[in-house]
């Protein structure tokens, strides 16, 4: 399992058309009105998102994942470093042609209905009327809002709002989908549906960048993740390899008697090992996450290297 972490030169990046998002030394400092440093929200982030993968940004509140997304979308300007999307500067408007963005909360116009919303965003992509109509129908179908298509968004439930938000992000059939907390506020079923949708989109060949603090979501759908804490990149790599705890062997068995269990324990002891636990496995993603946070709190400034 190779984990790509090394920063690439522009030349290689240009050649490597696989790379959809690239950040180089991306930093953001929030300043107050007088220009005094307030928060160092992001510190020299280097990541790359490749075509066709689901890349997750994970971190607690205020870790810098939203900032990263906003920098990538050009909603914020980096204090230093640069971000490229499809090889273009993040500030370039034309990159937006191929991007779909679902904001954290669906900041949509509450006085429009689903159709009008999709039509409006379709117009922003300069789509002709027939294409807009087609896409609108398609997407409403896809997110399952057929019954509510003529209702104003202010009457929508949170889940419906999320869905129309996603539909909005997909109006231009984007190559890159940026999802900010896609499952927040959704019930378990809604959450599952959303995750399935994301996976389906990936299967259609779209690249997806999502951020979340819902560990399960990330674990379920992401191919690769970056864990951020206090603006620092702590971990970066494939989800499966990151979760592989190398010095821990997990044994899954069924129908063992107590005697057999004791025997196994003895075997471990004999090999100089130590029985940590013999139980049903816990959600290790959560463990990993908490470990990182804990370690980071103990040794602030320490940066993970990934892989």
């Amino acid at each position: 399992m190779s984990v790509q972490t090394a920063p690439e030169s522009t030349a290689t990046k240009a050649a490597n058309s696989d790379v959809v998002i690239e950040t180089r030394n991306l930093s953001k400092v929030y300043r107050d009105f007088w220009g005094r440093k307030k928060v160092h929200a992001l510190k020299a982030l280097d990541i790359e998102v490749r075509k066709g993968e689901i890349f997750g940004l994970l971190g607690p509140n205020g870790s810098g994942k939203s900032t990263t997304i906003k920098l990538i979308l050009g909603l914020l300007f980096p204090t230093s470093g640069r971000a490229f999307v499809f090889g273009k500067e993040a500030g370039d408007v034309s990159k937006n042609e191929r991007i779909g963005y679902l904001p954290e909360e669906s900041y949509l116009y509450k006085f429009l209905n689903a159709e009008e919303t999709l039509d409006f965003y379709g117009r922003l992509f300069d789509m002709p009327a027939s294409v807009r109509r087609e896409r609108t129908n398609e997407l409403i179908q896809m997110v399952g809002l057929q019954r509510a298509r003529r209702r104003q968004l202010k009457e929508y439930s949170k889940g419906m709002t999320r869905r129309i938000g996603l539909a909005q992000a997909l109006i231009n059939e984007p190559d890159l989908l940026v999802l900010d907390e896609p499952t927040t506020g959704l019930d378990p079923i809604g959450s599952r549906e959303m995750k399935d949708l994301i996976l389906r989109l990936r299967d259609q060949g779209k690249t997806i960048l999502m951020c979340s603090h819902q560990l399960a979501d990330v674990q379920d759908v992401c191919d690769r993740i970056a864990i951020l804490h206090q603006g620092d990149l702590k971990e970066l790599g494939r989800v499966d390899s990151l979760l592989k705890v190398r010095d821990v062997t997990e044994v899954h068995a069924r129908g063992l008697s107590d005697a057999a269990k004791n025997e196994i324990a003895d075997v471990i002891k004999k090999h100089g090992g130590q029985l940590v636990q013999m139980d049903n496995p816990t959600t290790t993603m959560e463990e990993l996450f908490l470990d990182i946070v804990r370690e980071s709190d103990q040794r602030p400034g320490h940066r993970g290297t990934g892989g």
Partner: protein
Amino acid sequence: MRFKPDQFWSYFEWLFEQGGLFQGFLLTLVLAVLGFLVGYLVSLARSGPSEGFYAVAKVIREFFRVDLPGTSWRRIVAIGRLAFKEALRRRVLVIVAIFVVIIMFAGWFLDTESSNPARLYISFVVTATNYMVLLLALFLSTFSLPAEIKSRTIYTIVTKPVRPTEIFIGRVVGFGTVGTVVLVVLGVLSYLFVVRGLRHDHADKSFSASEMVGETTLDRSHKHTFKIGPEGLGVTSEANGHQHTVKRTTQDGRDVFVFGPAQGELGARIPVFGKLRFTGADGNEGSGVSVGYESEYHQWIEGASLMSAIWKFDQINESSFPNGLMMEMSLGAFRTYKGDIVTGVRGTIVLRNPDPESNVESDRIPFVVQEYQLDRRQIPVTVKGTKDKQSVDLNLFKDLAPNGELEVIIRCEDSGQYFGMAAADVALRAGDMPFWWNFTKGYVSIWLQMMIVICFGVMFSTFLSGPVAIVATLSFLILGFFGGLATDVINNKKEGGGPVESLIRIVTQRGVMTDLDLGNQPLERVIKAVDRGIMESLELLTSGLPNFNNLGTSDFLAYGVNLFGGLLGRHMTMTLGYFVLTCIVSYFFLKTREMAA
């Protein structure tokens, strides 16, 4: 009403001869340089000299290379439609309801007894509409963008391929449409209000069958006399600026008179103005004198002297004036002694071919001055005059104005008395426009003001929060009013000096009429120089701002003067200029603003 000479420049005269284009060009240049400097300074502070320059250059390059060509009409319409819907959602139509209430009650307050109710009614509705629409524009335009930024709906917009120009233009279009709809509704309401409010009727009060003349009853504080022709038809005399038709029928052996609706009350004269010059007391080209009035509007010529006022008109042709010239004069009179109280100060009019070679001029046409009112005088196509000192009948168009140019010379005949005049005080009336057309043009002028407010409102809202943007827009508009003040201070027309000097005067409690005597000549010179610098830069600044004083045209409607196409065209051009200006400024603000900050 009082015209400023610049109001009757034709469009091209303004654009080319009077330097409208040049001024616009100059202003553009100044603003471009200024804008670049400010942008660079800001960028300098952010990212250092070379990087800063690069950033500015990049934004400018992108403006011309990427964003301007990439601007899509469909996106503009989409944003405009959204703005329109948003405005409707914010219940802007309430303003129409308020207006209806206002004009309903206005009937109570408006003095129908006044000597010219039409003027009062029109000024009222036009002013009310103007204020309401501008207020509406102000609130709509300034609150929308900050609200979207605050609610973060802007995130979904700017992450689409939407250009900053489109965000600005779309809003201007959307709010402009809302404003237009409201304005049209208010306009129709106003029109009906004026027309209905002025409707009145008379009955006959007395009639003398032998002389066929009679008098109407006193209604709305005026009455007419009327004369019935042989067919039983007639017209009344003119009172309060209008006439009625009268029809006499006999019923049961009694006279019954039917009076038609008022005519001529609502109209739009089309005045043709000339250029005014004077001959001085020595008979040579000179200027008028002052008789000591504070106002410098009039220049005065002395009676029974060589002084005269000469108007030069052009485009005098038979098609514009088929029945000869209708001259409308409103000269001032000033007496140095009371003299004959009963008869007014007398003067003469002479028409002259401006070509000195031709030696054609009319005989003197005597008149008695009528101050502060429009003195109408019909000059027939054929007038008596001299050609090469031979007394002949002159044809107005063939002899006096063969190439459309005509000079009208006015002299005062009473020695020791004076005539006062400004260029607009003598006009030739080239027919009339229908009132509704003038009314429409007046509302177009309001529309232009509204668009300027919207442009500035949206511009300020691209970098300020809603309430601050309102204040900023208002200040900008109000600042426009004070352009004249700065000029006056520079030219010493306002006593008391500039800001520093005024401050010193306030602190030292020195009156404005006294000298600023600080006992230190160089210091005083420095103070005055500083003041001058401040006021001159203020003047320059304000000259670039829209002056709503000048943009208001309600007087044209109220005084029944056809709103000059040139003036309207000028205002349109200026509005377009402000649109482009605010668009560019907005682009740079939106482009360089972190939407998520």
